[in-house]
């Protein structure tokens, strides 16, 4: 069966067609073509998902990519349960985002270019999850970085967008630097065992032969890459700025693709990461801290998309928290549910922004419930899901993470306290946003109010589908005391090496759930109390120092600028403008000058004056005479 290759092939073909003949196709046809390409990929992915037996791994080698004996790296695809799930998310949610974009970008002049980039994004992302070896994975890895750069800076005429795109790419590159080093180290470590392919399956076979201290370093370096791509401390700074792109792009980057790559990579190499408790502990802490840290920032933001951006960082922190305690399948499960509700939130916010003619400041919204009934409903569903309202998708996945942190030997009290606090903060900032946007007094500017309208069906249908997913996606994996988990059984063969969360003590689990719910409810209650921006306490709080610190995002960007960017650019300037032309080239020109000076001096001797020559002749003769006489 050689189906796998078609999954990346269709979007690639779509992208190429749109690049080369898109301008003759027209905007509408270009958009439909792109949707069709992803649709076909989705169909193939679904076929693979349904055909794949639980323990089976499909493998599809295409050709040898590079061969320098002994190194031999193939272009080869593989698909197991994990890949199949990822493919469904990427192509499925990707397809919905494509369809939504038909409406959202319908009036944009760059629509053809937009859809070409979007298809390319799906291509690289599917390549990433299908790759059989790490180097091919890296192609997808960098490729999504490229596409995010192109899409974030899509409206490139605005300087800020171009800068945000740069930032995304460069911060990702810093992560990729770590990833690359990890790969180099792994390559030689595998080479010691006679395997020179970087193939994941072959790596799995020889994992037990690798030296643990090397594996520790390898996993640490690879995690730097994951932290870059999946926006974890300290490399999360690019993601909030990535909001500069068109809103469906934010949904694509934040929900279905790109940011999930880091989580996927750690899950794909779970057998390697499981070998090193130290790395896992670090990942758990980074994840937990990122979750909490980003949630606190989200509390004080006023841009509708920025709140969602920080919530993505926070939710990704949850996923890494799960990875860190060895609950890989739970991490992927949260990735899965998060894909639905976050895509739904972003696209709904896009619907709001679209309706208001581009307004993103929540202080200029309010009371939109009346104008945007469908968006209101989908937003509400997704907000409930992300806050962990019972029986929604987020409820199940977040609960499993908390439970895994509690029950795993790698977890600790401080970690789940952090996770709990984050759950409360999530409910608070999400409902704060919800109330600000949809309830209360309408604060929309007059001109925008006149044009306010619900989005067309082509945008509403994806919203509704995603909202349904935000509820029912979670039902695939429920606690033991409900109807159990399909998910664990599906992914278990992939993660057999990793620690699996303990499901025995279901009473503890119910108690745990109760506490989580209580904390989230408290967050909701606070948001409800402070729902109006005119609220006295809220106003007083917003002027406090702590709130300013949060609104300023802890001034991390400024710190990075001061400690890294400036010294670098300054030293570059010094090298380029002083050292290189002055010192190095100065040395060269100096040598030339000295030679010239010496020659000028030498020229004096050749004065052409006979008396000078005679004098020199006489002086020489006398000197010789004196020498011989003196002996």
């Amino acid at each position, binding site marked *: 069966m050689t189906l796998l290759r078609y999954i990346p092939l269709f979007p690639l073909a779509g992208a190429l067609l749109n*690049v080369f003949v898109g301008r003759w196709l027209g905007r509408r046809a270009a958009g439909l073509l792109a949707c069709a390409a992803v649709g076909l990929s989705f169909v193939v992915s679904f076929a693979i998902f349904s055909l794949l037996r639980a323990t089976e791994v499909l493998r599809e080698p295409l*050709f*040898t*990519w*590079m*061969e*320098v*004996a*002994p*190194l031999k790296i193939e272009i080869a695809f593989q698909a197991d349960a994990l890949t199949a799930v990822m493919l469904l998310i990427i192509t499925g949610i990707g397809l919905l985002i494509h369809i939504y974009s038909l409406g959202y970008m319908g009036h944009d002049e760059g629509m053809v270019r937009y859809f070409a980039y979007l298809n390319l994004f799906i291509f690289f992302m599917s390549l990433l999850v299908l790759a059989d070896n790490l*180097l091919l994975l*890296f*192609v997808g*890895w*960098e*490729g999504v970085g*490229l596409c995010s*750069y192109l899409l974030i*800076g899509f409206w*490139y*005429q*605005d*300087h800020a*967008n*171009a*800068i945000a*795109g*740069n930032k995304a*790419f*460069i911060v990702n*590159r*810093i992560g*990729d*630097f770590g990833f*690359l*080093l990890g790969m*180099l*180290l792994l*390559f*030689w470590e595998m080479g010691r065992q006679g395997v020179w392919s970087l193939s994941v399956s072959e790596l799995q076979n020889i994992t037990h032969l690798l030296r643990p201290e090397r594996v520790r370093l390898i996993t640490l370096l690879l995690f730097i890459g994951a932290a870059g791509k999946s926006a974890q401390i300290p490399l999360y700074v690019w993601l909030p700025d990535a909001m500069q792109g068109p809103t469906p792009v934010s949904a694509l980057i934040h929900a279905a693709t790109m940011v999930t790559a880091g989580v996927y990579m750690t899950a794909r190499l779970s057998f390697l990461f499981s070998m090193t408790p130290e790395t896992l502990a670090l990942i758990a802490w980074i994840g937990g801290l990122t979750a909490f840290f980003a949630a606190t920032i989200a509390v004080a933001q006023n841009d509708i998309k920025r709140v969602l951006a920080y919530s993505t960082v926070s939710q990704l922190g949850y996923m890494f928290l799960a990875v860190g305690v060895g609950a890989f399948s739970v991490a992927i499960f949260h990735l899965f549910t998060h894909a639905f509700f976050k895509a739904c939130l972003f696209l709904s916010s896009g619907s709001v922004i679209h309706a208001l003619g581009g307004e993103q400041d929540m202080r200029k919204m309010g009371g939109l419930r009346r104008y945007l009934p469908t968006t209101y409903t989908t937003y509400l569903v997704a907000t409930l899901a992300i806050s962990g309202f019972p029986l929604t998708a987020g409820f199940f996945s977040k609960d499993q993470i908390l439970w895994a942190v509690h029950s795993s030997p790698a977890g600790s009290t401080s970690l789940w306290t952090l996770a709990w606090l984050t759950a409360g903060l999530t409910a608070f900032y999400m409902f704060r946003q919800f109330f600000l946007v949809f309830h209360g007094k309408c604060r929309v500017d007059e001109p925008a109010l006149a044009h306010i309208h619900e989005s067309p069906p082509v945008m509403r249908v994806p919203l509704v589908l995603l909202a349904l997913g935000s509820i029912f996606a979670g039902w695939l994996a429920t606690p033991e005391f409900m109807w159990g988990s399909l998910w664990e059984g599906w992914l278990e063969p992939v993660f057999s090496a990793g620690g699996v969360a303990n499901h025995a003590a279901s009473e503890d689990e119910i108690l745990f759930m109760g506490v989580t719910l209580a904390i989230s409810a408290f967050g909701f209650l606070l948001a409800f109390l402070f729902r109006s921006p005119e609220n006295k306490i809220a106003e007083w709080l917003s002027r406090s120092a702590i709130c300013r610190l949060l609104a300023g995002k802890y001034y991390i960007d400024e710190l990075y600028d001061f400690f890294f960017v400036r010294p*670098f*650019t300054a*030293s*570059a*300037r010094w*090298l*380029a*403008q002083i050292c*290189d*032309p002055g010192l*190095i*080239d100065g*040395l*060269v020109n100096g040598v*030339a000058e000295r030679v010239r000076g010496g020659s000028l001096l030498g020229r004096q001797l050749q004065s052409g004056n006979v008396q000078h020559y005679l004098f020199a002749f006489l002086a020489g003769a006398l000197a010789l005479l004196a020498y011989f006489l003196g002996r």
Partner: protein
Amino acid sequence: MTDHVLTYMTFFPVAGMVAVLLLPRERHDLIRWVSALFTVPPLLLAVWLFRNFDRANPGFQFIEKFDWIPAYNIQYFVGVDGISISMVLLTALLSFLCIFASWGIDKGVKGYFALFLLLDAGMMGVFVALDFFLFYIFWEVMLLPMYFLIGIWGGPRREYAAIKFFLYTLFGSVLMLLAILALYFTTEPHTFDMTQLIAQSDRYGTTPLPFWPFDQLRWGFQHVVWMALFIGFAIKIPAFPFHTWLPDAHVEAPTAISVILAGVLLKMGTYGILRINYSMFPEATGDLAFWFLGALGAWNIIYGALCAMAQKDLKKLVAYSSVSHMGYVMLGMATFTPHGINGAVLQMFNHGTITGMLFLMVGVIYDRAHHRDIEGFGGVAAIMPVYTGVSAFAIFASMGLPGLSGFISEVLVLLGAWQKYPVLSVLGASGVILTAGYLLWTVQRVFLGATNEKYKTMPEINGRELFTMIPLAVIILIVGVYPSVVLDLLSASLEQLNQAVIPHLG
């Protein structure tokens, strides 16, 4: 015809030069087309060579050899092996494309194209010559037309740049000439035949210099000759601190000459080191490669990238990026692993295509705006979308984006370097961040942002300009996806070279 393939490839351009000289000076278009015509046969022969090159044979192929000046045992001796074949192909291709990139030259057309064709012959000769004397002659033949091409058809400071280029390279040539003579007189019977010199490469081992005070450093005759040759070649690469002629020469040279300079001439430095230093002095190479190629290469990567970051002139930026990217070649050469050295020679080829494209890109916009000030553009993407697309392709290739050719060679170099010199590998790998930094910042300032009113009416890239860039783009993509097309050519010879040096590594 196939018996003398390399000779034809080398001397067709000379015939072209003669033809051009016979044409009336005012028939500009005729001169251009005749020049183009004479670069086609070498290109076709290059394709033939590519198809018929025996990939399994590590030795020299397509050899032609006969006595030239028997009194001094000087021969006309040419041939290719895995070290030179990719450079021969690259030279044929870039020479052909650069004729079209020179179409806009309208001052002294006849002289320009005549000199260009002579330059073409000289470059080809350097890569195929297997007699050291012949090699030296071609080396000098290439130098002269370059001097005039920069000095007459260059920018405002062309004379300064041309003289600097000339003196610098001449300084290297003199050192090389001394080395050649030293080699000649230490062989018995005296010979310039490179294959003989390589075969006798073990003869220096035990002759320490009589006046060299530091015996413990094991410096002997061959180390001195090695250094003399190295400095000559390092100037060409250009390795720090001998690189300062490059930005000046590039900035002043016309577009096509910049392409040739970066695409072909720089490679002569690393090619010479592989062909001569490595093959003829394996022991000295083993002693000196770490510092003078490995460490210096890593330094080149970082230094070039940092310098590029703060440039204001677009062409200068690309020139410094060359300094940085040639660092990967040096680093890869110093590893003596199959990955590293194959990666190094592949990087020579890739740098030729990628940087060639970048200089063509600069040329296109310079022809329209008549300046290269990075800050002086802005929003070009809106005015020239096709141009922007092609340029972005070249820029991302230069950044080492996976799937394009630069990535393959850089990864191979870093893989190779990691085992021997992990620290250098880390330094080299950090180049990926810096490169992304300066290139993206350039994209942002030139192509993105609000459109500069001054350039609203700039015409889109035309068919001729596209014609010069698209073949390079296609090659970059093919090598990125299927690098075996080039790697297969190299690996046998490079393996042999590696094996010669490895026993002498410290």
